[in-house]
């Protein structure tokens, strides 16, 4: 029993110290830590190092000339624009869904939660192909759209659309467990005290979920910026128009432009690092 309790303890509370364990357990503890550090260096540290070494292989001047190539600059801008469009929409979507499934009981509630998570389990390439089959010229709605001269596929809105789909669960997924755990007492109290629906939302619900909301948004943002598969199918990869940063990296790489590819990759890697830092801060805010 004692052993079991010791094993469980670190999982429950991060303050649990190995000093309280038996010597054998202490050894296991350090072994685990060492292997975790070793694997992190091997799988994360080394690749990161490679990205930046290759990016700066030709010197800082070459690096900046690669980054500021018009096609790469536009790719960076398009990727940022996609995030600017997609993340707020998905935050709104996430709040609505989480609100709906945690504050109301209705038939099909569990099914809805499962549906919301579908984009997680579907490979992005499937998402891309599905959109193509829906909106492409030879797709289901293609002839109708063509007759009104509306083009969706191979335009910037197509990139927004698939990115929305792929990243739609991120915010909802963060909010649902939190709002479930918090329960609706605070909101009920507010309503009883005479607050309107909007007041309740802005003064009670939103402050309660803000860190989880931002956390979801940060994850969503990282995913939007890095998305390759789905975007690759629907973008048409027109340089300077519909080429996002991940697509541009592939293009540069295929072109034997290793420095350019790694320079562009380094911007994505930087975004990832910023995301990690934000994630860390938000996690601390959430638990405190």
């Amino acid at each position, binding site marked *: 029993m004692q052993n079991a309790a010791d094993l469980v303890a670190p999982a429950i509370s991060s303050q649990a110290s190995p000093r309280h364990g038996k010597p054998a357990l202490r050894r296991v503890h350090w072994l685990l830590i060492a292997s975790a550090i070793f694997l992190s260096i091997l799988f994360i540290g080394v690749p990161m190092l490679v990205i930046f070494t290759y990016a700066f292989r030709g010197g800082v001047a070459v690096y900046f000339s690669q980054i500021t190539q018009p096609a790469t600059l536009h790719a960076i801008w398009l990727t940022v*624009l996609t995030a*600017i*469009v997609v993340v*707020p*929409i998905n935050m709104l979507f996430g709040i609505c869904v989480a609100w709906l499934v945690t504050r109301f009981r209705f038939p099909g509630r569990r099914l809805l939660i499962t549906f919301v998570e579908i984009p997680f389990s579907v490979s992005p390439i499937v998402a891309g192909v599905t959109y*193509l089959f829906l909106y*492409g*010229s*030879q*797709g289901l709605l*293609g002839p109708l759209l*063509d007759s009104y*001269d*509306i*083009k969706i*596929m*191979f*335009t*910037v*809105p197509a990139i*927004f659309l698939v990115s929305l789909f792929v990243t739609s669960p991120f915010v909802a997924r963060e909010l649902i467990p939190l709002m479930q755990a918090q329960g609706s007492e605070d909101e009920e109290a507010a309503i009883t005290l005479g607050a309107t629906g909007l007041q309740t939302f802005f003064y009670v619900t939103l402050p309660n979920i803000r860190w989880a909301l931002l956390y979801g948004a940060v994850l969503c943002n990282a995913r939007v910026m890095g998305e390759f598969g789905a975007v*690759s199918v629907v973008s*048409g*990869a*027109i*340089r*300077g*128009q519909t080429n996002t940063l991940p697509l541009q990296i592939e*293009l540069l*790489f*295929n*072109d*034997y*432009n290793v420095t350019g590819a790694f320079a562009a990759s380094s911007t994505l890697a930087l975004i990832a690092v910023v995301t990690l830092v934000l994630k860390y801060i938000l996690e601390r805010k959430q638990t405190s």
Partner: protein
Amino acid sequence: MNRLFVYAAVALGLSMTPVKAADEPTEILNVSYDISRELYEQIDKAFTAAYKQEAGKDITVNQSHAGSSKQARSILEGLEADVVTFNQVTDVQVLHDKGDFIPADWQSRLPNNSSPYYSLPAFLVRAGNPKNIKNWDDLVRDDVKVIFPNPKTSGNARYTYLAAYAYALETYKDEAKAQEFVKRLFANVPVFDTGGRAATTTFAERGIGDVLITFEAEVLGTRKQLGEDKYEAVVPPVSLLAEFPVTVVDKVVDKRGSRAIAESYLKFLYSPEGQDILAQNFNRVNDETVKAKYAAQFPETRLITVQDAFGGWSKVTKDHFSEGAILDKVFTKR
């Protein structure tokens, strides 16, 4: 928070603004294969300058690059390509077969089967050619390791396969022996990568294999990129003609009214200036003056055509590349 929404709305609005087809478009889209980016960057620059001088108009050529089968598919689904510049005849043909985007006789509309430049499968060997690889039959020797991508996934490798097959057919004059020959060739390949880029990495960076087979243009380009002292190019005395077909996409240019610009763009590829840029990038061309200028770069070789050796692309596709056809037989039983 609110500001974010405003930005988002504005951004969405801006990007949704329909691009109205003006009477005289000033932009055309060239949809091309995946590794032609730098080549067409040079072509487009020269063409826009030449066009301005000739017609006094500023125009832009936009580029899209990806695997040419995927590009063809995208065009069928609505990607508005004014011209295509591909590396596979079959991928252009699809535009006629599946959607009637171009007429059946597209290949006879421009000189040399609508192929302004061409190349051939050739060899890249390590400095000094230590294994003395000169011709296709050297590749099936027991002491030679060969690198080329998987012919099931790479168009580039299909050319290698067909070239070896055509060579064997000529030498042994027997289908069974030709199949035996390519089987032995496949047996000498230690790793099959999915694409040409990965195969180059395997050969150059991982140092696996004695010879890399790919288009001559890539052999020469890779050698220049990776060090001319470290590798040598070997052009076999006989190889297979690899065409790079181009065409105006009639359905798109007629809708957009861009036929004139699109056609002069393709004509530019055949002009001395265009041919010079193509040859600079290690592609073989037909213009006599340019040919003479770059003669040292391109050794003499005899080229077999797919038409002569196999009876055309649709027959090759059926006999060799369809499910359960010759490639499947020799590739799985290696």
